[in-house]
């Protein structure tokens, strides 16, 4: 029994990174006020249906460069695949309803922005969170 469990865990550990199942978190700079973020509000923000937090604080969003982490994030938060997200977002952007999230050139750049800029919200793999950031929401 124990051996089976051990094998299963080993297998899970091996598969986890391949599967892109790292834990994702939504973070903001510690310079932001004592803000809170619900999963529902996060979905509204990233789908362009809101530009503020529940308490009315205007926020900006960060996107990671195209890749697994980004795709995984949108799938978990909005249940939309990359093509659906691009189609949905392009309509909002080109009809002037919303400005798209600021796209960082790299994870390192996103980390720097998120640590330094108040009222900026972004998502990272939990292991990429650095000091200067505060975790607002976990997306297991």
């Amino acid at each position, binding site marked *: 029994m124990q051996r089976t469990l051990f094998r299963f865990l080993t297998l899970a550990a091996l598969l986890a990174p391949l599967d892109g199942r790292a834990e994702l978190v939504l973070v903001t700079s510690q310079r932001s006020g004592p803000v809170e973020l619900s999963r529902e509000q996060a979905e509204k923000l990233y789908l362009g*249906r*809101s*530009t*503020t937090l529940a308490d*009315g604080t*205007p926020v*900006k969003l*960060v996107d990671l460069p*195209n890749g697994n982490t980004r795709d995984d994030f949108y799938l978990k938060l909005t249940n939309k695949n*990359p*093509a659906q997200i*691009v*189609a*949905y977002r*392009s*309509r909002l*952007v*080109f*009809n*002037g*309803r919303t*400005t*798209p999230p*600021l796209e*960082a050139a790299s994870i390192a750049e996103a980390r*720097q*922005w998120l640590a*330094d*800029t108040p009222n*900026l919200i972004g998502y990272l793999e939990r292991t990429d969170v650095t000091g200067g950031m505060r975790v607002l929401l976990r997306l297991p």
Partner: protein
Amino acid sequence: MKRPHPWPARLAALLAASLCCAAAAANEPPRFALSGFGTVGVARSDKDDYRFHSSSTQDSVSPGQNFDATADTVLGLQGTGQLNDQFDLTVQAISRQAVGYNYTPHVTWAYLNYRASPALTFRVGRTTTPFFMFSDSLNVNYATPWLRPPVEVYSLNPFSDLDGIDMLYRIPVGAMDLEVQGLFGNSTLKARSASGRLSNATGIRVGLAGSGFSAQAGYTRTDLELHWDDGLYQFLNNQFGLLGQTGAQAELSGKRGHARFFSAGLQWEKNNWITVAEYARRTVDRYINSAHAWYLTVGHRFGNLTPYAMYSQQRQDTAAFAHDTAPALAPLVDFYNTTRNTAQQTTALGLRWDVARNIAIKGQVERINVAPHSRGMFTPESAAAAFKPVPPIHVLSLSVDFVF
């Protein structure tokens, strides 16, 4: 269009200024974003005698059975600069074939956006008329399941620029968001055989959006100026002149028209099924006919492939010139009204293939039946074709849509 665009030009200058001075510190995100979209498409019909058009504002280069690369091809660029937390500027320009085979980039958006509160936004400058559900993203084919917006509905009002002011008010209603838009402005247009102007357009649009569902309805009333410039108009106008019917002449073309536009539509996505439906009505007191149209599109997503089917139709309510006239002129008036009637119905099958990130390939076949006493969206190639009823026409279209 030769008309100068004071608003767009001024806003573009402001945007450029915001660009140069928004040199933020390197560890802060930039305040300017540039993005774009486009379509490369070809379309052909199975009849040599008729040219297919996707709108009344373009000529088409290739008649009938030649592949025409101008009906759907479009390129757009958009820049947005954030001035501060409350103000930003957006400029968008597109290049696509306009009347006179003109590809000169046309400014479609150039406005200053002012967020008065999280719920209330004002936009001043050039925005887009919100006559239809997809008015504000007409050229962004990547964003829609179909190859092009259904022409029966979207040709009812080809005016797309709105120079003026609008207001957007957004509030949550339960799990949904309600958006109310009010607008006031003017618009000009150059079409194949006419030029026009909307003045003092006043409108309201109400939209409700939730997860996987959105619905909207809009109503606009406006003063209408419409000047026909085709040979048939000139001929009929001369005939009225010879008979001393100046009253009839004033009903054909001029500056005293009034129009009302109404549309309502919904989009629904569930379990990979996509449903889009819309109804629109144009009511005009003179110069052009009154008509209504609707469409229904249903698609299903299978991974990267989304096949869809669409039915759409347009019907005329009153003819362009609906007044009594001398009996001798009745056949001519009849013919004139036929050339101003675009009633037709389309049944289409298509496929969207999301081939790569930001790129979709689409194919569509459609059968178009033009209504009696109508020309539909086709212009005849020969005098013989001009006097015959239009036969059923099949159109094959292929396109590549992209955003960046």
